[in-house]
């Protein structure tokens, strides 16, 4: 064991951690917004909305994330005619992928709201958007918070997959330091520890929130 390897490269590694956090934050936000749209689409009674949304969700849920990352890495440059760069193509892949999972969370959250609430909304003269925005979504969001926090933890872990397209996030930097210093055990234990700390905070928060809701 030679733990000195970590302080020696700490600055470089922390830079990776910042990039990882950025990736996670942007994917979370984008994935969630797209996920709301897809989740609503999945509950739509209009067939031309329902089927594309369902197809989208099932398509992305049956692919490994690593393949989705490759997809955007290869496909997007081909469509727009110029390479996107690894950060942007990773972000797009994450948003597209996580949206499918968020959509299912949103769907479950909305379905947990009794039908009567929707009917009450309509009967007071509100339209679809007003009912959703003012009545259903605020209540549903509250139910969705624990699974969303869990999903945050998953996204944070998933960002490590950007490693495969060479993006210098935390894990990639660990790998780079390892290939120079040959200190695999120390470095990967350190990486595991860092992820563990961040994710445990998320997991514990999620569990607390869940307990509070059951107690309510």
């Amino acid at each position, binding site marked *: 064991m030679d733990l000195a390897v970590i302080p020696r490269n700490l600055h470089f590694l922390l830079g990776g951690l910042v990039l990882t956090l950025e990736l996670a934050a942007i994917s979370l936000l984008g994935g969630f917004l797209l996920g709301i749209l897809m989740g609503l689409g999945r509950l739509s009674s209009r067939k031309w909305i329902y089927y594309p949304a369902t197809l989208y969700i099932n398509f992305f849920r049956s692919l490994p994330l690593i393949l989705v990352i490759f997809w955007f890495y290869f496909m997007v440059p081909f*469509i727009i005619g110029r390479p996107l760069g690894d950060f942007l193509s990773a972000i797009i892949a994450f948003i597209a992928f996580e949206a499918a999972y968020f959509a299912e969370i949103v769907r479950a959250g909305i379905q947990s709201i009794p039908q009567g609430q929707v009917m009450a909304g309509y009967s007071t003269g509100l339209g679809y958007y007003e009912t959703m925005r003012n009545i259903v979504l605020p209540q549903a969001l509250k139910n969705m918070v624990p699974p969303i926090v869990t999903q945050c933890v998953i996204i944070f872990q998933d960002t490590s997959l950007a490693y495969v397209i060479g993006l210098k996030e935390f*894990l990639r930097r660990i790998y780079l330091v390892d290939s120079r210093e040959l200190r695999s055990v120390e*470095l990967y234990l350190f990486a595991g520890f860092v992820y563990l700390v961040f994710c445990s905070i998320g997991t514990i928060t999620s569990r607390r929130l869940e307990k509070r809701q059951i107690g309510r």
Partner: protein
Amino acid sequence: MLSYDFDWSVLWKHPYGRWMLEGIWTTITLSSLAFLIAVTLGLMVGVFRVLPNRITRLIGGSYVELIRNTPYLVQLFFWYFGLPSLLPQASEKWIYDHVPSLPYWTGVVCLGVYTASRVGEQIRAGMISIPTDQYQAAFSTGLTTYQTYRYVIIPYAIRIIIPPFTTEFLTCFKNSALTMTIGVLETTGASYLIDSYTWHGLETTTAASVVYIVITLCVVLLMAWVERRIHIPGMIARGR
């Protein structure tokens, strides 16, 4: 749009077609073996977590927390790059010399250990969801403990556990793609390799996607059929 010449023949031209087929086979065997480990280990973890014993609960709980809160990729690298160097020099050398396809087996074990934490949680949830009335009813009709489990609890538990197990198997199946990072040529790895030889990433990535979607669909349909076959009238499948 860039001009791009589609050449689908890279998928079956020699030797690429062979690589692709071998990749698919590797994905199937790797994820199946890993899932076998996951169920065995997960059963232990699940039982540990519901036993009325503080220590076993702590062990089971720590296992689940530790595995679930670190990315699979970090675990994979730790197993592959880190662990061998912890062994004595002689055995480290022996492993590198004598274990054929080391990345493959590292992938199997690591994926198994990882999936076990998720399977363990499902088993725990399944066990908790069986109402105690079931035990009481079985005992009061005069069944022994063995008979209670054999004829009442286990048939019940299996039906509760099939849907989450299907999900976990598919997660395991998809996660197997990550073993390409340590050099296992499974479906994604093979498609990436063919791309680096032919520069036809769109075709190979499409082919790999189709493989995953088709296998996922087959598993889902098969399990839906199994669920219908063994359905007990009146039992709510989701086990609430």
